[in-house]
């Protein structure tokens, strides 16, 4: 059976198995747990104590609580990843065996946070490095050991490049002569014009 929220593939076995655990929790409490899981996916801290309190009525073991959080994380992030609207998500979850009120509650929480979730997923997509800052300085060389009268302008550029994994910012300094700098600027302006046509 192909599901859109799994990317048009079969639903993983472990998700199928945990749907029954989700059904044990009342639909109101499930919506609150969803809110917590969404907070975690958006990068804020998760309140594990709160989730434990909400699941205590359903008398779930600690393994089941963790499984519930894992299943909800998977469903919500996978639905956001494949840009599934909340109607389709609701019907697909009901096909998997989740009761109607639970599915509607879950999808309502999902719908509220769909855009922020997709934005945060876009931000943590693979990216090799990132330009943090650019600083520049224009100098005028008067004379050097090679030639007595040089009289040429010189641009000093310093790029701050941030490595995605370690978060360390590396600085790349370079000195560019006036002509080279003009070429660089012209090419970058052409690239910017191309980018504007795509936006």
């Amino acid at each position, binding site marked *: 059976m192909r599901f859109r929220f799994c990317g048009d593939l079969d639903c993983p076995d472990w998700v199928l198995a945990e749907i029954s655990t989700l059904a044990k929790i009342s639909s109101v409490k499930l919506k609150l747990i969803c809110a917590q899981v969404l907070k975690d996916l958006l990068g804020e801290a998760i309140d594990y104590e709160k989730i434990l309190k909400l699941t205590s009525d359903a008398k779930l073991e600690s393994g089941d609580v963790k499984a519930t959080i894992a299943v909800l994380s998977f469903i919500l992030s996978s639905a956001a990843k494949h840009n599934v609207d909340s109607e389709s998500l609701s019907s697909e979850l009901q096909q998997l065996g989740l009761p109607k009120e639970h599915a509607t509650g879950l999808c309502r929480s999902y719908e509220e946070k769909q855009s922020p979730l997709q934005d945060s997923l876009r931000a943590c997509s*693979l990216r090799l490095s990132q330009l943090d800052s650019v600083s520049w300085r224009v100098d005028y060389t008067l004379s050097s050991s090679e030639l007595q009268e040089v009289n040429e302008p010189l641009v000093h550029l310093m790029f701050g490049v941030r490595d995605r994994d370690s978060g360390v910012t590396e600085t790349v300094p370079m000195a560019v002569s006036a002509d080279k700098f003009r070429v660089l600027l012209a090419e970058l302006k052409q690239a910017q014009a*191309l980018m504007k046509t795509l936006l």
Partner: protein
Amino acid sequence: MLLVLSEEQREHLGCLPRLGAAAVGELGRLAVELLRRGGAPRALEAAARKLDVSVDTIQHGIEGLTYLLTESSKLMISETDFQDSVHVLGFSDELNKLLLQLYLDNRKEIRSILSELAPKLPSYHNLEWRLDVQLASRSLRQQIKPAVTIKLHLNQNGDQTAQVLQTDPSTLLHLIQQLEQALGEMKTNHCRRIVRNMK
């Protein structure tokens, strides 16, 4: 297969008969602790004081016992072979029986500790990917060139490294096909026969 003990080791183990059965039991326990967790100098000093011998004697005794236990566990020698090897040292029957018991009790655990010392290749940790399309470059405009960028996270003895790779979609499809063929090998008769025999 018989264990061969060098002169020095025989000397080290030579102190055991003098200490008596209870002491040997204590030393055996300390030797296994040494294999499990590494050196514990304070425990050695306490044992030395209790048994009224120098710390050096205790140290040598434990080292000798450790060697005896690791070599026997490594080679997985049978009871008779172990008894014959220990017989060479000329200990009393009671002491021999104690050593044999020590070996048999701890063999499995020592083997599992030794198996962790084997060198390991980097293992898979995580894979991030990204699909890009190159539309234009400085030299050529109006292109369409798709490329898949992959970041492979590897784990080796706790160190994390990342490898960045880039490929075009047709090479990626070829790669997937080769990997699926490799997985399919498990289903051939040859592999099935070997797996059956290993169980």
